[in-house]
Structures are given as structure tokens and as C-alpha cells.
């Protein structure tokens, strides 16, 4: 007979004693190497963990000036790129019609031989398209193209040309500045989703963490103006919805209030800014005059009217110093985008934030003589010109250097048609098949950043001279034979005797030359008694920086306000649709460049929690009126084309706006990017109409109107949240999951 109802004896608890978990038995030596990560909107300093020759983890490099140990959602993606099942392993030569998909795997010797012959026979008619590049890979690409008499275009779907032009006109230099958000008391941002995808998000997020740190200083206040409820809008203390293209008027109205109420600090020369005209130059922009033209709703956070709201924001912005005004994204993507951005950045002069801690910090030139601190700013118009050159046979050979412009540009520019022709010899340097290199005559597999040398002058730097260095950390797998794109270009130039301006055996050789140059400077973060020691310390640290080598304010503020006002024109819109189309970069896929990586696809969007699919954001009340429910397949139609996606009904979407993320709608490439049902994956670039930004000729991607139709089809939406809208319910007061407090309610 067993014991009945007995107590648990103490000894029996030992059943639960810790077993030797595999995690307790730590085997294998780990090493961490510093390098640069290339999967985000800007390069980041990272350290890569290596065990037994395999890369296991990527983390922020704590010493690197721009990201200070932090990482973005895309940082780890390099690992999946490195070990991707669909990564190209050998050179591929077209065997048959273009776009037939028939390629032969050939040796590097034969591939380079053929490319070399093509270069020789088409000398003087060679062009290259690449993403924005800096560092020695940019120098090599430029010298290579110059040697063969062509041009290189730096292509991005949503280019930064207008932003760069505005920076140059307002701050006197086109090197992008650093925004010292961490030390700011107030951030007023327009359109730029800087906490998610805009320019250098990890850098801004690091600052944002300090900005919200009430232990160090006052908690900063942030107002965000945007025609869509973005990640940045969701983190702002106040979000002001606005009609696309009206951002500049709002900024000038804020300027009006600051001057009218004399809210600017004593050092600001308003007389000079306004060419002596004072407030009268801005009379047309008084809140009472323009408040109702902006499309901003009334009653935003207790404001009774839009003019009152503008005055409140202007007073806050001018009284919480240092304050920063940031603009980008949709604010620079209407036909009057240049005016909008200039008007926004002008506000920094008016509150005395330029070149000051907690304000706009100007970045210096690069410390190395042939390295630029900026990328080239090309636009879709430059690509259109190249297409004309191909049509007129001025360009007969095109090198695609890790870029996918057939996917990344609207169909109406006609790039696909010119590439699908035997008149052009197309070489693609890339790691995956895509919509562009399906037309290639030759595909040369490139090394991943974890396998390759490289360097970068980060743009923007953190306010002082910085050079990041990238080193090969692991070797390619034994069944892979990728080669460094820069080394391939160098060897082609050397074979044809065109390497006169490229005195390097390899990219590594060029980097060592740069290291010697930095050694001679005898300043900065890297030490070493010999050049060799300096070089290994440079690699160990992941870069070189000198906190004392800062930029200078070269702004010429004389008459600046009048110059900006002169550019004010109403935005031109295409189409007569019921909604403004506001496309946006996807949080992890960005413009689609990370689409092959399963982690990027399987990461929920922060606002909607949708993964793997294209969703169409629509206001909940509008959806209700039109009988649209979440999951319905919606056709979005513009004058250019139409796409379909899955409705995501949002309580935060402005009623007049339809927004759609970039990044999906891939048709050629890894199954992770392309294997989708009809209706759930679309490329929003296809419906953007041909509108250009005045003064920069960039694509005005927020100047299209669209109409929507419910197709009657419905699909399950792949999202992380539950099937019902997530609102906190069922808890008594004080038991909410997310508790809030007011700034004064807790002790400091």
C-alpha cells in the first residue's frame, strides 16, 4: 500500500535539480571581428561573431561613431545573405534569348575573357548603374567607367537628390549633416520616417533614446508632421496629418509666428534672413491665412483650430531650445518638394540651432584626399537619359553593380524594353537573380560584405571625420566562388591596360594605401608605432575617427527666407483619384533590396504587424463606408497602372490617403521574395505617375492620386496581431498592460 495524501518531501524536490543543459556546456571558441554592415539605408559599424569559420551573429560595434553599438532590424540580414540557398555561386553566361532564364555556369577565366572582349569592342560606350557608393569601391567604379569613356549612375528608388539640394541651399554644403537629437529639447519633423527608414535610422534612434531619457536631462518633446501615420509619427508626442505638398507652407507659417512673437534667440539675425523686410516678407503665411489650406484636421490634441495649433507648435519649438527641424520623405516628394524641404530646414536658422550642440551639426570633408564624404545624387531623370543614350547607341554596354532598377523604377520609363535587346551587352554583378539581371548576358557573383574588403565615409557621419573599414571575416563556402566586384573591375582594367588611374593590385591594396595616409596624419582614434601596427589596429577597431575634426557652418543666411519663398508653388498632382497615394519604405525590406532574406520578410511591420505581403492602408471609417474589410483584395488605380493588395483597416490612417509599402511585388528571384498568391504582393512603384520635382528633376513620388476598388476577393492577411483590432480591453483601471504617466507625475 502506498502512502496516501502525503506531503512532498524536501528530497523529492531534487527531481527538479538543474540538469546539464546543452547551454551549460559551452564549446567552441568565439571570435568577434569589426566590419561594416551594408544591409541598411546607410552603413553601420558592426562586430561579427565567428565560430569555426562560420559567421553566426552580427551586432553593433560599440565604438563606431554613428551607431554606437546599436543595430537596426536589418543588421543581422547579412548572415542570411551570406548563407542563402539561392545565392549565385558561379559566373553565369546567357545561353539563348534574353530573359529566357537559360544560363550556363562557366569559369571565372572564361567569364572575364568574354567581358574583357565586350569592353574592348564597346570602348567609349560603357555605363554603370550602382547604388549610392562611397569609399574606394566608388573610386574604383568611377575610374573604371572613366577609362572606358562612360558614366556611372547611382540609383535609388526614392532618391535623396532633393534632400541633398535643400541641405546645400540652406547650410551651404551638400555633405549631409548630423542631427544631434540626443541633446535636443525639441524635434519638429516633417515627412521623414527617421526612426524607421530615413537616411540613417539607427543613428537617429540612438539619439532618440537619449532624447527620451528623463534621467539625463528634460525629456525631449517631438512633433511630427506627416501625411501618413508612420513609425516616427507613432512615436511623436504630437502627430499633425497634412496634405502632401503643404509641408513648406506650414514651416513658413511657424517661421511667421516665431518672428511675429519675437520668439527667436538674441543671436539670430532676422533682418538678414528676411533681407530687411522682417515679418512682411512672410505675411502671406500667417497661420490665420494659410491654416485652412494645409489639410490638417482641427482638434489635434486639444487645439481648437489649425491656426491655434500652428501657433502652439511654433511657441513650443522656439521655447524648448536646442530644437531641430528635420524634413524628408513625403515632405520632399511632391512637385514642390525642394521648396518644402528648404522651408523646413530654414527653421533651424531661425532658432539658432545650426552648428550647435543639440541642433544641426555640419559634417566635415573626408580626411583622405580622393574619398568624398557624399554620394552622387542621381535621379530617375538621369536613368531616363541613360535609356535615351542606349536607344541612340551612345551606350552599348551596361554594368549593373548590385542594383535592380527594373524592379526599382516605374514601368513607364521603359528600362525593361531597352535591356531586352541584343543591342546592349549587359553585365550584372550581383548575388541573386532579379528582375534586372534576367536580361543579362553575363552575371558575375559578388562577395557578401562579410567576405569582402571595403570602406566607407559614413554619410552622415556623427559630426566629425570618420572612416569605416570592412574586412573579410569568413571565406566563401567551398561550393561558392564569388569574387569582389572591385577586384573584378580592377583586373579587367589591368588586362586591357586601362588601369592608369587605379594604381592598386586589389581593393585591399587600396585600403592599405588609405591606412598609410591616415597613419601619416598622426591623429584620430587609431594608434600604432608602425604602418603595419596601425593597419591591424584600424581593422580591430572597425574604422578611424577624429572627434576634433569637425565640420563648419558655411551657411549664407542673407535673404534666405525670400529665396525660399520664391520657390513656393502649389504642388501638381496627377490623376483625378479620390485619394492621395503615399508610398513608403518598408521597415525591413526597405525599397525591396532585402526581399530575398526570410528574416526581412518574416518581420512584422511595426504599425500593422503584417509580414510577407503587400498591404493597403485605409482609414477605418472610409473602409466602413465603402464596405471594405480587412483582408479584402483592393485594386489601387492611377493613371499609370493599377496594383492589388490586401486591405489593412487602420484607425490612424488619414481619410484622404491610401498608403502602400515598397518592397514586395518581386517577380524574379529567390522564392522567399517571389512565391506569392495573386493579389497579395505588388510593386507600388508601378502606379506612381511621371511627375518631377521642380529644381531637382527627382521623381515626385507623393504626387499621384488613386482610386480604389474592392475586387470582391478576400485573402487571409499574414499579420502577427490577432484577428480583432488590438485595443486594451477587459482590465480595470490601473491594470492596463501599457501604463502611462505625465511628465511631471514621476519624481526626478
Amino acid at each position: 500500500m502506498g502512502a496516501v495524501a502525503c506531503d512532498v518531501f524536501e528530497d523529492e524536490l531534487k527531481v527538479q535539480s538543474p540538469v546539464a543543459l546543452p547551454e551549460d556546456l559551452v564549446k567552441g571558441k568565439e571570435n568577434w571581428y569589426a566590419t561594416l554592415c551594408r544591409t541598411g539605408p546607410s552603413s553601420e559599424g558592426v562586430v561579427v561573431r565567428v565560430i569555426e569559420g562560420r559567421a553566426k551573429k552580427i551586432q553593433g560595434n560599440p565604438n563606431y561613431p554613428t551607431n554606437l553599438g546599436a543595430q537596426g532590424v536589418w543588421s543581422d540580414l547579412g548572415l542570411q545573405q551570406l548563407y542563402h540557398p539561392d545565392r549565385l555561386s558561379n559566373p553565369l553566361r546567357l545561353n539563348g534569348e534574353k530573359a529566357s532564364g537559360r544560363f550556363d555556369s562557366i569559369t571565372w577565366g572564361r567569364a572575364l575573357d568574354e567581358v574583357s572582349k565586350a569592353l574592348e569592342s564597346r570602348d567609349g560606350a560603357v555605363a554603370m548603374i550602382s547604388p549610392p557608393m562611397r569609399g574606394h569601391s566608388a573610386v574604383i567604379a568611377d575610374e573604371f567607367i572613366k577609362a572606358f569613356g562612360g558614366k556611372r549612375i547611382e540609383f535609388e528608388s526614392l532618391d535623396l537628390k532633393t534632400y541633398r539640394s535643400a541641405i546645400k541651399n540652406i547650410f551651404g554644403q551638400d555633405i549631409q549633416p548630423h542631427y544631434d537629437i540626443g541633446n535636443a529639447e525639441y524635434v519638429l519633423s516633417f515627412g521623414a520616417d527617421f526612426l524607421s527608414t530615413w537616411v540613417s535610422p539607427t543613428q537617429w534612434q540612438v539619439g532618440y533614446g537619449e532624447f527620451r531619457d528623463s534621467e539625463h536631462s528634460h525629456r525631449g518633446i517631438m512633433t511630427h508632421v506627416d501625411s501618413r501615420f508612420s513609425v516616427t509619427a507613432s512615436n511623436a508626442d504630437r502627430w499633425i496629418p497634412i496634405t502632401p505638398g503643404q509641408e513648406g507652407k506650414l514651416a513658413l507659417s511657424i517661421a511667421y509666428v516665431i518672428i511675429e512673437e519675437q520668439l527667436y534667440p538674441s543671436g539670430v539675425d532676422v533682418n538678414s534672413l528676411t533681407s530687411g523686410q522682417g515679418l512682411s516678407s512672410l505675411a502671406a503665411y500667417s497661420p490665420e491665412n494659410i491654416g485652412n489650406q494645409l489639410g490638417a484636421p482641427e482638434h489635434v490634441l486639444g487645439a481648437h483650430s489649425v491656426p491655434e495649433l500652428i501657433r502652439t507648435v511654433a511657441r513650443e519649438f522656439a521655447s524648448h531650445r536646442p530644437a531641430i527641424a528635420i524634413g524628408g520623405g513625403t515632405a520632399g516628394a511632391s512637385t514642390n518638394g525642394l521648396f518644402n524641404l528648404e522651408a523646413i530646414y530654414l527653421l533651424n536658422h531661425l532658432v539658432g540651432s545650426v552648428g550647435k550642440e543639440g541642433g544641426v551639426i555640419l559634417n566635415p570633408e573626408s580626411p583622405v584626399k580622393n574619398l568624398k564624404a557624399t554620394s552622387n545624387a542621381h535621379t530617375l531623370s538621369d536613368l531616363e537619359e541613360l535609356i535615351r543614350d542606349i536607344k541612340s547607341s551612345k551606350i552599348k554596354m551596361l554594368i549593373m553593380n548590385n542594383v535592380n532598377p527594373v524592379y526599382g523604377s516605374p514601368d513607364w520609363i521603359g528600362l525593361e524594353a531597352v535591356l531586352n535587346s541584343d543591342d546592349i551587352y549587359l553585365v550584372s554583378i550581383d548575388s541573386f537573380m532579379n528582375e534586372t539581371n534576367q536580361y543579362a548576358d553575363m552575371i558575375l557573383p559578388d562577395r557578401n560584405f562579410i567576405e569582402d574588403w571595403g570602406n566607407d565615409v559614413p554619410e552622415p557621419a556623427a559630426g566629425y571625420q570618420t572612416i569605416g573599414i570592412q574586412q573579410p571575416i569568413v571565406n566563401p563556402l567551398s561550393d561558392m566562388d564569388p569574387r569582389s566586384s572591385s577586384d573584378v573591375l580592377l583586373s579587367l582594367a589591368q588586362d586591357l591596360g586601362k588601369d592608369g588611374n587605379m594604381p592598386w593590385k586589389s581593393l585591399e591594396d587600396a585600403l592599405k594605401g588609405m591606412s598609410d595616409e591616415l597613419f601619416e596624419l598622426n591623429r584620430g582614434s587609431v594608434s600604432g608605432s608602425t604602418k603595419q601596427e596601425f593597419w591591424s589596429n584600424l581593422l580591430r577597431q572597425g574604422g578611424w575617427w577624429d572627434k576634433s575634426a569637425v565640420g563648419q557652418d558655411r551657411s549664407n543666411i542673407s535673404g534666405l527666407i525670400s529665396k525660399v519663398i520664391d520657390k513656393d508653388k502649389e504642388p501638381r498632382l496627377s490623376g483625378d483619384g479620390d485619394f492621395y497615394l503615399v508610398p513608403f519604405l518598408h521597415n525591413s525590406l526597405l525599397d525591396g533590396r532585402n526581399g530575398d532574406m526570410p528574416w526581412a520578410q518574416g518581420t512584422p511591420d511595426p504599425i500593422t504587424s503584417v509580414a510577407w505581403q503587400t498591404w493597403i492602408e485605409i482609414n477605418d471609417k472610409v473602409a466602413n463606408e465603402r464596405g471594405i474589410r480587412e483582408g479584402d483584395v483592393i485594386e489601387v488605380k492611377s493613371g499609370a497602372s493599377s496594383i492589388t493588395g490586401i486591405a489593412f483597416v487602420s484607425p490612424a490612417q488619414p481619410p484622404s490617403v491610401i498608403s502602400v509599402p515598397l518592397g514586395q511585388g518581386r517577380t524574379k528571384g529567390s522564392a522567399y521574395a517571389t512565391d506569392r498568391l495573386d493579389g497579395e504582393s505588388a510593386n507600388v512603384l508601378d502606379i506612381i505617375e511621371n511627375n518631377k520635382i521642380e529644381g531637382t528633376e527627382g521623381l515626385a513620388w507623393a504626387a499621384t492620386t488613386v482610386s480604389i476598388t474592392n475586387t470582391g476577393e478576400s485573402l487571409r492577411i499574414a499579420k502577427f496581431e490577432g484577428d480583432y483590432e488590438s485595443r486594451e480591453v477587459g482590465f480595470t483601471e490601473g491594470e492596463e498592460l501599457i501604463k502611462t504617466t505625465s511628465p511631471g507625475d514621476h519624481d526626478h
Partner: protein
Amino acid sequence: MVVKIEHKWGMVVDLDKCTGCQGCVVACQAENNLPINTKDLFMQKRAFEWIRIERYWEGDFPNVKARYLPVMCQHCGNAPCEPVCPVYATYHNDQGLNVQVYNRCVGTRYCINNCTYQVRFFNFWEPTWPERLQNQLNPDVTVRTRGITEKCTFCVQRIRRAEITVERRERTKLNDKTMAARNFMPACVQACPTNALMFGDQNNKEDKIHGYFEELHGHDGHSDSRGYRILEEIGTDPSVIYLKKVDQFKMEHSESHG
């Protein structure tokens, strides 16, 4: 001789700093060999995220907020998952961690049912990776098989490496600074760009999180009174403290969505 130093690990999440960026989510998946979250897993509401960002709506256009809440295993002091496991696969270790012993788990899923925070995940299928992608798998972390339950471990493999390297070999007590400097912090904490996630030893006075736990347990010593624990009224005694989101402006809104 083995030097054993007692710790009680804990985490602090500052809701005022979390931007919902998902950096922690991907970092965790890379570190801990989580299965690839395919589209089908999302459709089935079975995506594996040891740390996830919950997003809650508040208000309506234009006075609307999206609130983010990072949720991972709360490593409860009174964990509801522990007593229901018939095979002691989940137990509380002597460092305050709620530990899952994979090779004991028989897949009853009682722990998943009983978890207040829904942070336990069941492998309904054998997780698979294409052959090349297997090169990325972290050798310090077991790949779980079909039929067992898994969850956040506070990156126990990193804590173990830290103990071996710092405490046993170098004979120095671990603290949050040495863990951060030498890549021993949990992957989510290390990744977070805004420092919304903090990790450390609740018992170590030098660690930044110590004060928050002291204050919570009724001792004086920390100046910030934003700390609370989610669903703590149930009595789970979680090892994760959340710091309240600061609302700069009060929002007047109707509770139309109840």
C-alpha cells in the same frame, strides 16, 4: 575550484523609449535558432517570436496613438507554467531564470495554456532550414525538435559564457557593464538602438536595473517611479519591470472601440 556567484537576473523595459522598430525581434531570432517564420506560420498565428512587439491602438484619427509593448518570457518568481509540467521540463533555476529543459519536454502544452503572457511556443512541425542557412545556426543553442515547447531564456547561453569567461577564469564578479562590453547581454538588449531594454542582476547594487527592483519591492533607493510589472496583480512576480510611457500631452478621445 569552481567559483559560484549567485545572481538573480532581471530586465527593465522603458516604454518611453521603445519605437517598435523590431530590431530586438530579428536579433533574437538570429541568436536563438528560431524557425523561419513563414507566411503560413503567420496565417496560423503560430509565428515564433521569443520577444515580440505588441501594438495597441488608442483613440481615433486624428488623435490616435499606437503604443508598443515588447513582451518576452517574464521569468516569473511564481511562474504559472512551472507547477503544471508533469515532467519538470520547466523549472526555476537558482538565478531566477525560468528554464525549459528541451530533452525532458514531452509536449503536453500545459505550460503554454497556463502562461499568463503567451510567451511559450510549441513546435508543431520539425523546424527546417535550407542546408546553406544551417551554417548560421548558433552552436551554443539547441535546435528544438517537433513536439516540444520553447521560449525566451534571457539568452542563458550568453550568461553561461560570461560566467565561464569572467567569473571562473578571471575571478571577477559579472555586472551589466562587463556583460555589455563583451557581448554577453541578451541579444535583444544588445541590439536595442534606443536602450529601451536593460538587463542585469537584480541583487547587484552596481547594476542599473537594481534600483528599479529595490523600489518595486518597497525599498527606498531609486528616483524613478515609473516602474510596474504587467499583469502582476495575478501574483506571478515577474522578473521584468516596465517603465510607464510618458504622455507629454493628454489625449481627449472617445472610447468608441471599447
